[in-house]
């Protein structure tokens, strides 16, 4: 590949271009390796590899009375069996909180005692030469339990209040309101169900541990694993270059990771542990089942005077998981009297964990459904209701917004969608035996930024490597960081390689909460600018963009590499602003008048996301979020049988996610938004807001189609059979 011969930086900025994924070829050819694909038996050291399979409890509460591993130990290929009786005792690291660990309670450390806290909790680990031998050995472990009646039923368990917020006097304002909406909304438990199964490959060398791991944050994984094993964090290397989807399930360190490391140490060989699809449902968290009560009060002009939003979410008996269901309620619409209240219901189940749009997507379903109900009650268009209640600042924080594109999103979205063709009266639009409905909702998600470090390595051979520990779980971080590096180094992308997902690289936070581009991207920008100056000082300004010329100069200076390391912290420019992304979602649904079958025909999403680094990848993110939103609205639910505590949707045939045939026509637009405050790149994260607002837009369209308000997700055909 020949480099550019011009001396100036590339003429066209790479930021803003819909560059194809730089790792796309590696992904579609199988060259990109995922956690379970590292170290196979025909590799050096691979002959020694063992596979681990854990046995999950088949009761939801109680304790192990007896556990007999005799048969399992004698099975072919077995290396060893671990139970609470012979497993090494790990350090009490309850005080070391990792990313997404609930503040209250202690994470489950596997195989430490006889207690069973939820169905599927690991009670024993079989380690054998092949995966099949380990599966078989696990099935031969005989466990007798002292079972107790589990508490599984969300509806009958007692909620516990955990926190509230308020501004103004919402109760008093609601009491006096001219128009009132009071409604309760339910969302079923959902599982993340990424395509890639969670997997860990653990190898010890003395007191140093290497993990190939499916994780959204290698640094967090290293810190937590080190704490559990009493190691220094730098003695744990975590490698996770590619992640096949996670949606939050790989934010925490789960018991299977700890068990793989335990077994590798105990049996002195590398150990690979891959969860089965059935185990995924009980082993890596879930979006908690929730119930929300919303009360809206408005004056005669449909201006909001009160919002009282109460939410209850499920959690486990050993950790109190609380998510941000209610944070957007305080600022999304203009209301001076807002009160929120969050409660949890502790059940005999595993702990929930953030799932795409955590909390916010849950809260928006209820809030934006209630806004729709208010629009019909007041007899005005849902967009008009929102325009009348457009705030000029964040009333919860009493801060101006760094930017807020809602009005433009409503205007452009309504025009592109054809909102004006909507009949005001619900249940009146038809297409043959299909009832048609239009619905809309406002979307938002906080635009956060964190601290990250980046290393830039210029090599004598004319290549540039950009390294940071940040992950790419699918949004295209490899590609967007390449674009940012190219523009700020003034070097063509063909010379640049980005390397991610490795604790040997400079520290970066986990990829979660839609902040990676803002965080690792801003750090890449800062370090590349600095690196460019250092490179120019070495090779001369005129040679920066011409890497083939570096060889001679590097050699003269006696250098093989120029290494520049640095980072960036949360930008000062954010100080004094409420930083969030906003959007507007429009949905057209068709509901079969006879059978209640629901088809989403069209989705239009218009978003203000600051600067768009790569429009192709941003659109791809939103597209995925829209499909997941269809799942949330119409398909996805995990139900635990209250008698046994087992999920009855434990595979992808029973846990329904949308398929291609469920995909609607999609229109995705990003408005021009220049946000000088949010971060130096001016970007807002996309991953979460892509899901937020989809479900309420669809639910509101279902109401418009049928005249029937279903206040529980997923909406099922039998809910709509008139």
């Amino acid at each position, binding site marked *: 590949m020949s480099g550019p011969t011009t001396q100036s930086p590339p003429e066209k900025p790479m930021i803003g271009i819909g560059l194809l994924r730089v790792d796309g070829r590696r992904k579609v050819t199988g060259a990109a390796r995922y956690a379970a694909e590292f170290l196979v038996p025909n590799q050096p050291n691979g002959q020694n590899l063992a596979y681990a399979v854990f046995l*999950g409890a*088949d009761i939801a509460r109680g304790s192990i009375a007896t556990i007999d591993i005799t048969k399992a130990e004698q099975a*072919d290929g077995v290396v060893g069996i671990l139970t609470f009786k012979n497993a090494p005792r790990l350090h009490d690291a309850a005080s070391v909180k990792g990313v997404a660990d609930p503040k209250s309670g202690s994470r489950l450390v596997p195989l430490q005692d006889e207690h069973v806290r939820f*169905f599927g909790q690991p009670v024993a680990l079989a380690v054998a030469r092949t995966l*099949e031998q380990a*599966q*078989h050995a696990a*099935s031969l472990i005989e466990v007798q339990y002292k079972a107790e009646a589990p508490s599984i039923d969300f509806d009958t368990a007692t909620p516990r209040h955990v926190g509230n917020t308020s501004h103004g006097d919402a109760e008093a304002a609601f009491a006096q309101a001219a128009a009132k909406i009071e409604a309760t909304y339910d969302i079923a438990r959902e599982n993340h169900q990424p395509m890639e199964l969670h997997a860990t490959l653990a190898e010890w060398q003395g007191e140093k541990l290497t993990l190939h791991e499916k994780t959204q944050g290698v640094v967090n994984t290293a810190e937590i694993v080190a704490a559990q094993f009493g190691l220094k964090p730098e003695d744990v290397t975590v490698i996770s270059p590619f992640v096949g989807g996670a949606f939050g399930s790989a934010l925490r360190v789960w018991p299977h990771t700890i068990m793989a490391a335990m077994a590798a140490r105990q049996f002195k060989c590398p150990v690979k542990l891959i969860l089965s699809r*059935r185990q995924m449902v009980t082993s890596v968290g879930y979006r908690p089942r929730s119930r929300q009560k919303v009360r809206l009060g408005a004056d005669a002009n449909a201006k909001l005077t009160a919002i009282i939003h109460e939410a209850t979410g499920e959690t486990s008996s050993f950790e109190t998981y609380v998510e941000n269901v209610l944070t957007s309620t305080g600022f999304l619409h203009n209301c001076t009297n807002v009160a929120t209240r969050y409660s949890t219901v502790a059940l005999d189940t595993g702990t929930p964990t953030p799932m795409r749009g955590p909390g916010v997507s849950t809260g928006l379903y209820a809030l934006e459904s209630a806004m729709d109900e208010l629009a019909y009650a007041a007899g005005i268009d849902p967009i008009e209701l929102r325009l009348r209640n457009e705030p000029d600042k964040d009333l919860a924080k009493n801060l101006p917004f760094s930017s807020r594109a809602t009005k433009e999103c409503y205007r452009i979205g309504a025009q592109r969608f054809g909102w004006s063709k909507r009949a005001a009266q619900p249940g009146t639009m038809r297409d043959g*035996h299909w009832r048609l409905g239009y619905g809309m909702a406002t979307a938002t998600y906080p635009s956060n930024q964190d601290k990250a470090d980046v290393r830039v390595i210029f090599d004598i051979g004319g290549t540039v490597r950009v390294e940071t520990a940040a992950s790419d779980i699918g949004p295209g971080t490899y590609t967007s960081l390449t674009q940012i590096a190219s523009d700020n180094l003034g070097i063509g992308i063909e010379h640049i390689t980005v390397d991610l997902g490795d604790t040997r690289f400079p520290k970066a936070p986990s990829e979660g909460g839609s902040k990676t581009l803002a965080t690792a991207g801003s750090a890449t920008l800062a370090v590349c600018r600095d690196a460019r100056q250092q490179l120019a000082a070495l090779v001369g300004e005129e040679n920066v963009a011409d890497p083939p010329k570096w060889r001679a100069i590097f050699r003269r200076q006696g250098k093989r590499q120029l290494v520049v390391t640095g980072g960036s912290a949360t930008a000062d420019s954010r100080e004094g602003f409420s930083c969030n992304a906003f959007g507007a979602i429009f949905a057209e649904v068709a509901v079969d008048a*006879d*059978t*209640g*079958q629901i*088809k989403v025909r069209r989705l239009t999403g218009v978003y203000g996301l600051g600067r768009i680094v790569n429009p192709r990848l941003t659109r791809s993110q939103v597209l995925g979020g829209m499909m997941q939103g269809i799942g949330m609205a*119409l*398909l996805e639910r995990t*139900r635990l*049988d209250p*008698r*046994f505590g*087992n999920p*009855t*949707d*434990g*595979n992808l*045939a*029973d846990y*329904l996610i*949308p*398929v*291609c*045939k*469920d995909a609607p026509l999609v229109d995705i637009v990003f408005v021009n938004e220049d946000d000088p405050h949010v971060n130096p790149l001016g970007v807002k994260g996309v991953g979460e807001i892509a899901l937020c607002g989809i479900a309420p837009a669809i639910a509101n369209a279902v109401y418009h189609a049928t005249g029937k308000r279903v206040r529980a997700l997923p909406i*099922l*055909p*039998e809910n709509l*059979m008139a």
Partner: protein
Amino acid sequence: MYPFRFQRPLSETETYTALTSSPTARAIAGGTTLVDLMRDTVERPDLVVDINPLPWRAVETTGRGLRIGALARMSDVAATPGLAASHRVLVEALLASAAPQIRNMASIGGNLMQRTRCPYFRDPAVSQCNKKTHNAGCAAIGGYNREHAIFGTSDQCVATHPSDLAVALLALDAQLVLRSRNGERRSMLEEFMLLPGGTPMREHDIIPGELIAAVEIPANALGRQSRYIKIRDRGSFEFALVSAAVALDMRGGTVHGARIAVGGVGTKPWRLRQVESALVGFPINEDRLNLAMNHVAIGAKPLAENGFKVELLKRTLKRTIHEAGAIA
């Protein structure tokens, strides 16, 4: 998974010998259902016998009518030239099944032998299942049963038969050709599929070492004017909430003969003879259909979560009859 033996006999005789050499032996063709069940250890054959070498793949017209080899793949049968015109209900049912990748692997015989999707049956951690263990109880009756059956249930089992193909074949009066070392016999599909009654572990009228060799559909006027409509929660790759197969013999605007079978509602594919009788001799119109629908729910026993299936079935069936009647 667990250790098991695998054999691939090359002759029919050796196949029967292998299948009768162990009481838990199972035949495998496409493997799309057996492998899943073995991974979950719900099925635990100690010997798996590959029957793919047997020469049973042809789709042909014989003196008896249409004959489909049991080892023909679902996608191949669906793509048979002329079949969509002569037996539309069959092609529609095949294409409404599973997903293309599965249809490419799955055999016709295996489809008819597939086992229920009841989540309690498929969950290895649930022992309360009379299909898995004699007299172990039924977790579905007092549990989640939205997808379960309303017809043909017993106090031992309420699991639905999952096949779309079987519903279409029932509406076409199909019979099975069964072969074993003792020779060949025929069994009407309706009699081949058994009700759970007090023995839900026994699902088919088949003896050890016996195989489905072919499906035969008699030559008559019923296939041409036929439809299959399937209602499901998502657009593809999903079992029926309810489905209807309707085959009509229309003469001069009047129903001369009708076959109606429904799926997603029965412990086996369910024939609605009283609805058929109510149609014969009359033109298809709204009044006649409404009268006929009065016979749909006879014998239905809804469970806690699936009561909606009765009404959903009526509406789906009505539409299917309408559309079958409208085929010129």
